[in-house]
């Protein structure tokens, strides 16, 4: 194959203002992080609540959480995104609809849609991990907590969840990385995150190979750094004397 790689392309002017192509990637990375982090925080909170609900006694609360998981896990992410962006806004109550369609600038409304979409989609997956983490604990833990007079809430807060979260750090790490990778769907509704900027660079400059190579490297380095961060967290919260823990 005869292709002339030109890595200097990133430092060349885009022809728009004084921007060089690298600026587009930096801005795209910024959006990617802004989408993924905010969606992750919501997913973690909502997923934890749902995961706890699935382990509670009684019928109604576990059933609601189970229904949620089934709904959000069994519809493709892209379909969910189009629902949130194209369909749901039309069924919002009047003031909200006007706000979403007219007051917000297009980038912000795309941002809101994709954050809601990723947060709710990922919450279903976090829910399942929190549930399995709680269910992996010996029954004696909740019995011991209840026996000293803890309420159900205190039992979860002080005894069950601190242990369950430690167990599920590895799968949660995967989910945390997934949300960064999944955020690339936002390019399909016009949010200029990393993938959208890459495509735009490829189209403007015709240096398609360089553009996608750089995008690959950025995603890779970003996710490797997050993984290293989560490994640190895992080490930090290890329980002394337990498997893999400090002596």
């Amino acid at each position: 194959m005869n292709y002339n790689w030109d890595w200097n392309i990133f430092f060349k002017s885009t022809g728009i203002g004084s921007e060089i192509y690298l600026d587009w990637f930096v801005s795209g990375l910024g959006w990617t992080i802004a989408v993924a982090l905010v969606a992750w925080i919501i997913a973690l909170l909502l997923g934890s609540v749902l995961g706890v609900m699935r382990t509670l006694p009684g019928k109604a609360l576990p059933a609601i959480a189970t229904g949620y998981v089934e709904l959000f896990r069994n519809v493709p992410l892209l379909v969910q995104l189009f629902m949130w962006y194209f369909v749901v806004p039309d069924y919002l109550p009047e003031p909200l609809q006007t706000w979403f369609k007219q007051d917000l600038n297009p980038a912000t409304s795309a941002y809101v849609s994709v954050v809601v979409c990723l947060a709710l989609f990922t919450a279903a997956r976090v829910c399942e991990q929190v549930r399995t983490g709680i269910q992996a604990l010996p029954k004696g833990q909740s019995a011991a907590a209840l026996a000293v007079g803890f309420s159900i809430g205190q039992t979860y807060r002080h005894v069950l969840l601190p242990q369950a979260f430690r167990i599920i750090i590895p799968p949660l790490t995967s989910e945390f990385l997934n949300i960064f990778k999944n955020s690339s769907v936002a390019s399909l509704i016009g949010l200029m995150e990393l993938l959208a900027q890459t495509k735009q660079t490829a189209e403007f400059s015709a240096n398609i190979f360089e553009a996608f190579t750089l995008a690959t490297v950025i995603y890779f380095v970003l996710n490797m750094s997050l993984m290293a961060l989560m490994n640190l967290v895992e080490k930090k919260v290890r329980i002394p004397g337990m498997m893999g823990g400090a002596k």
Partner: protein
Amino acid sequence: MIRFNNVHKWFKDLHVLNGIDLQVAQGEVVVVCGPSGSGKSTMIRTVNQLESINEGEIWVDGKNVADPKTDLNALRAEVGFVFQHFNLYPHLSVLDNITLSPIKVKGMDKAAADKQAVALLERVGLAHKKDAFPAQLSGGQQQRVAIARGLAMEPRVMLFDEPTSALDPEMIGEVLKVMKDLAESGMTMMVVTHEMGFAREVADRVVFIDHGKIVEQAPPEEFFKNPQHERAQQFLRQLLTPMS
């Protein structure tokens, strides 16, 4: 202090408690024994409602535990419970295991709770282990911490559900010693155990249970010398000469 009135419980078709009547007076030490599957663990777990009951009444310190109006959390705070498998919180240090419930349930301040915990650890001979984590302790040490954790709530009654059954033989003594000291300090205790030496030496009364029914209860010297019920005689024979 504790009174069972005609208590019944079923696990589906299994009639696991079949009309239990029992009283434990303040300061009394009652040992509950019986063959495996007789319902003794279920019975002791009904006292603080870790197991619910289907029929009858259980009164603890003047409160009916099966009454939905009873504040179970408040009641449980006054009833210490020691489990067969210790059930210490593995993510907390020994000290934090003991102080967690006084701080969170009783609202004790941290400094006072720490001071109390260290005193309790001295009482069970483990003050030097206060910063260790449960997984770094032997079974006997964990069980002694579990007893200290129970005592930290200043309970009016202590319940023990086979506290030495999960221990290596050479660790049983250290736990029984702590329980004996506790009995001598005047604590009301209900103990499910097969440790007949402990029963003989410490108990005020031995209760023998079979098929969910109390078939015999007597002071230990009488129970061991002259068991009345055939099932109790057989049980004691097997306990004393298991190979015959």
